[in-house]
């Protein structure tokens, strides 16, 4: 009983995600199509032609795909696709990466990069303190040396900039 509920929930999660992604694509491409009006010069070869062509095709194909999936769902002739596992880990990894990128110019790479790597390794299940420390510090240091010594473009040092 409980397994069937989980299966159904997973299925609906995938269907809901499909619905959301395709709906977002319809809205985004329709908006981009509308905005592209302003890029034209009235000629058949204006700056609006290609974006409108691409967005128009995207909008139509997304709408038909959405209708197809809804049709399959309503007919109940089968689920829209195979069952997918549901996990929050990708969202947490993406959020931590987003946080890393936002804080990078403020806190700085030398402090933040090893911490972010440590957190990511932890999220992926690594628990060995030696590996956590060596990989997070080692990788960050190698990248820092390569970027600062070879490319002369180190990532922002942030809080410790005055000490470097």
């Amino acid at each position, binding site marked *: 009983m409980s397994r069937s509920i989980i299966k159904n929930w997973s299925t609906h999660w995938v269907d809901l995600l499909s619905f959301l992604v395709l709906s977002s694509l319809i809205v985004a491409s329709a908006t981009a199509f509308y905005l592209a009006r302003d890029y034209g010069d009235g000629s058949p*070869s204006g700056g609006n032609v290609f974006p409108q062509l691409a967005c128009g*095709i995207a909008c139509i*194909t997304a709408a038909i795909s959405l209708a197809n999936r809804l049709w399959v769902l309503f007919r109940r002739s089968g689920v829209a696709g195979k069952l997918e596992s549901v996990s929050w880990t990708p969202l*947490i*990894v993406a959020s931590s*990466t987003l946080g*890393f990128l936002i804080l990078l110019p403020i806190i700085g790479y030398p402090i933040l990069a090893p911490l972010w790597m440590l957190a990511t390794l932890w999220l992926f299940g690594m628990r060995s303190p030696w590996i956590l420390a060596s990989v997070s510090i080692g990788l960050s240091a190698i990248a820092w040396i390569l970027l600062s010594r070879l*490319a002369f473009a180190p990532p922002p040092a942030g809080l410790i900039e005055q000490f470097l």
Partner: protein
Amino acid sequence: MEALNIVHGMSTVLSDPVTLVFIFLGVFAGVFVGALPGLTATTGCALLLPFTFGHEPLQGILMLVGVFCGGIYGGSLSAILLRTPGTPAAAATMIDGFPMSERGEAGRAIGLATVASFFGGTVGALIMTLLAPKLAIIGLAFGPPEFFSLTLFGLAMIVAVSSDSLLLGVLAASIGMWITTIGFDPIAGSSRYTFGVRNLLGGLELIPILVGLFGVTQVFLRAEKLLVFPKAAKGETFIPKWTDIVMTRWTALKSSIIGVFVGSVPGAGCDIAAFAAYSELKRSEGPNSDLGSGNPKGVVAPEAANNAATSGALIPMLSLGVPGDAVTAVLLGALTIHGFEPGPVFFTSNLDLIYAIFAGVILAQLALLMIGLSLTGVFARLIRIDQRVMIPAILFLCMMGSYSVRYSIFDMFVALLFGCVGYLFEKTRIPLSPLLLGVVLGTLSEQNLRRSLIISNGDLLIFLQRPISLLLIVGASAAVSIMLLRTKSAK
């Protein structure tokens, strides 16, 4: 006559052992850079370009050619082992290479990819040597309508091979093409979809998009479930079996020929060559083939084609001064820095150098074969690294690789964004390859569509009135029709 020219070119290269060392170093660096997710042959060439300044032009150019050949091959290693192609050219290899790796045949896949790359690159260089002058003339016949039709052809091919759903393939390709319209209008110079954001003025860089779609997406997918490689190539021989080579010989030859001709068309590059060869393989294998689930021919076809295309891509660069892709654009810059002006005059006045370059390409393939087969064990060991370390390290490399393009945190955001997009598309079964090809071809497609419309005063019939353009459009239509018929018959 051409045979004598290549012998003469070979003797020029072999007469100086330092040139051989440069070729070997170039290939080694190329394979290394190409195998690392987020770094491409273009990055490798760009990084090594300053190193070539103080040396003989031939040495420097052949080193970069070595990086080019090695990088294209190296991209396939990460595609097979990690499902993260280093270059768009390796995306087609991933389709069958990764399933082989998953079922414990990574060594077999890499061995076949190595031999196919060597074979394709060598055949490509030989064909180029024989046909270079004639192909340069065909390249001259390409105008805006032909270029636009060529991009349509490339997109139709990828849509036909990469998805079970034509609609979703077209959807992904059109989104990719739309992405390229962000930034400056390539003809009028006005800005589009920038919303006052300064970083968007120059458009989105290809490498962060590529890294996001294929690298970061893979990290997110593996965050759900870490892959396990139970039969990780331990004790497996990496030299391909003779039976495998015999089985794939015609595929390799046909794909090499496709690769060299597609690669010789300016703007086409190794990626279209690989997908065109894969598409042809899919067509010839029929609807009941197991392509996409780890068929060795699916590894051989794109690898032979994309390495043959490295030779082909040199033709428009040398004869017309038009780079076939981003790597040849860097090579073009290298030639200019060394005091040469690629173009029709260069092709006739520097024949010795041209044939020495082609001889160097053949020797680079030999170096690639040696490095590939001897270091396959090292690369195959990559998959034995604990996935709990490997995947976060890939994410880190993806972010740093994106940063290194323009030393911009904005590009890291772009990689993350496209990683999220790729993850959502994977979940909703929207294919990523057409999206990527749309991004690669979008600008070329728009420029040539608009130039064609300017030439014809807005008359779309121009695309049907020119034989090469018509042929390409018929080819694109045929690919889509076959895909539709197959889908219908499968139902």
